[in-house]
């Protein structure tokens, strides 16, 4: 069997705020090119865990490496090798599509030549040629989200973190969005995605379900459904989430 490459590896990763343990000894690995679903109710600790992996927050204890870099000492290196898209899709509304691409490509250190090339490719891929001077404000929500995702991976990161990327979008656009995710994954970019939509969880290669700061289940969607005798991921999630002590915020 071929040795798979781990791009994220967490061992007993923990984050405490005072007496409150937001993330409680989570352990998992994510393979290169995998689409890894990170699921949990509000307040389960998803965002805190993700912030630690993105280098925005230092863990209290435990070990983790992202793209081969240590989250304690090398978060500057980590930041260069990851992409990020937040739940509020994160483009500048008062800038044009081209200006947004330029800005994000520029802060990741791409040079003029690369930026030009990337911009053309990206516009072609999103079928937005000729619209590069449109203000982002004028785009429909679905387009904005697809654009935001493409910009999040404009610098070809090893991993892209997506924090509830499809909130408030219709099912058709969501499916189109997921085809972009599959494309990126096929190019070898690892996808780390949190979501509330259980049908989306089924699109993932593997899914972890967080309850009260712990990972209670981690497997492929098919195995999880078998294990919990459920017909959909919704059923799996409800069984696990009911055990939660914490209430969402």
């Amino acid at each position, binding site marked *: 069997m071929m040795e798979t490459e781990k791009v994220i590896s967490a061992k007993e990763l923990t984050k405490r705020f005072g007496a409150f343990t937001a993330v409680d000894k989570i352990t998992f690995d994510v393979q290169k090119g995998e689409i890894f679903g990170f699921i949990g109710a509000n307040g389960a600790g998803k965002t805190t865990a993700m912030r630690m992996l993105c280098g*925005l927050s*230092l863990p209290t204890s435990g070990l983790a490496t992202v793209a081969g870099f240590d989250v304690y000492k090398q978060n500057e290196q980590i930041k260069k090798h990851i992409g*990020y898209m*937040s739940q509020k*899709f994160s*483009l*500048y509304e*008062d800038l044009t599509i081209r200006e947004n691409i330029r800005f994000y490509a520029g*802060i990741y250190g791409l040079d003029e030549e690369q930026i030009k090339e990337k911009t053309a490719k990206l516009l072609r891929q999103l079928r937005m040629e000729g619209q590069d001077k449109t203000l982002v404000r004028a785009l429909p929500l679905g387009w904005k989200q697809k654009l935001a995702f493409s910009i*999040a991976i404009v610098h070809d990161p090893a991993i892209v973190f997506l924090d509830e990327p499809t909130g408030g979008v219709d099912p058709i656009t969501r499916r189109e969005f997921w085809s972009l995710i599959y494309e990126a994954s096929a190019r070898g970019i690892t996808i780390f995605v949190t979501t509330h939509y259980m049908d989306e969880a089924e699109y993932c290669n593997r899914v972890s379900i967080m309850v009260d700061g712990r990972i209670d289940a981690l497997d492929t969607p098919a195995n999880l459904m078998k294990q919990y005798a459920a017909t959909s991921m919704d059923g799996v999630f409800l069984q696990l989430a009911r055990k939660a002590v914490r209430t969402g915020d």
Partner: protein
Amino acid sequence: MKQFLIFVKKEWLHIWRDRRTLFILLFMPIIQIILYGFALTNEVKNSKIAIFDQSKDEATVNISDKIAASRYFNLVKNVYSYKDIEATFRKGEIRMAIVFPRGFRYDLLHSNHAQIQLIADASDPNTANTLTNYATSIINDYQQTLNPGEGLPYTIKTQVRMLYNPELKGAYNFVPGVMALVLMLVCAMMTSIAIVKEKEMGTMEVILVSPLKPFRIIIAKTIPYLLVSMLNIASILLLSVYALDVPIAGNLGLLIAESILFTITSLSVGILISNTAKTQQTAMFTSMMSLFLPTLLFSGFMFPIENMPVPLQIISNIVPAKWYFIIVKEVMIKGLGFAAVWKETMILIAMTAALLGVSIYKFKIRLA
């Protein structure tokens, strides 16, 4: 460094796209200078008065003419009884009335003792005081002409020289005040709004995940506003020199350097506000409440600080605009050099360092 410039350019695009705000930013100081310069003046000019002359002799006519001819007064009415005076005051037609008693000239020449009554509307005490002072000095002036050359044997004459502002123009006081107010508002309010906007839009999170250093992001966001503020300084100075005849007595370079320092202080205030505010509205209200009023009240521009109760005097010390106001007055109006303002400059530098220190500290906590 290249990434930094890309960020500054992006920030500039934000300002440039929002033409309306840019327009307000650039024209607010001009409009303020014009407003304060021509409308909100507290100089007394053309005050309406009435005269009740019961004597109608050479002396009273002379005095009346002198008063009516002065630029301070505008004689609107001759009245013929005390009742008339009261009625005219009630109607709000006049600010002051002058009453000459019967036989004024006779008293003046024969008993060496004549009286004039000045009745002023003291519902506005400052104006009432000023008006009676002006009138008294015109009357004294007339008295001098009565016996030229031969002064009384033992007289003390006061000789008044109004230093730095011989014409007692209000502009000498409010130009520095408007500079402090405008710079504080533009810098603090606009930067805090601009930073909080990124938080609200969710873009702040994304750029924090990028390789840009957090504090560089903040500095990059403030640079365009520093440029806008420098344009404001230029427009205020040009207007004050060419439209209001307030000359720059001191070193222009020093004045500009001190203004840039104060701009940086104000930007730091904006950064601190943006650290605590979660929405643009909060940022705006916090800036308005915590900056506009204190700057107006405690800079010494509208109300003299020495007249305030001690606790308020102490509070005024933490208002950066107070120190900048002093610096501008010393340098621009009095023409003094750095030696006269080094203390105030040090205070502003210390305030800026403290504000930035607290901001960095809070920023780090948020990231931990």
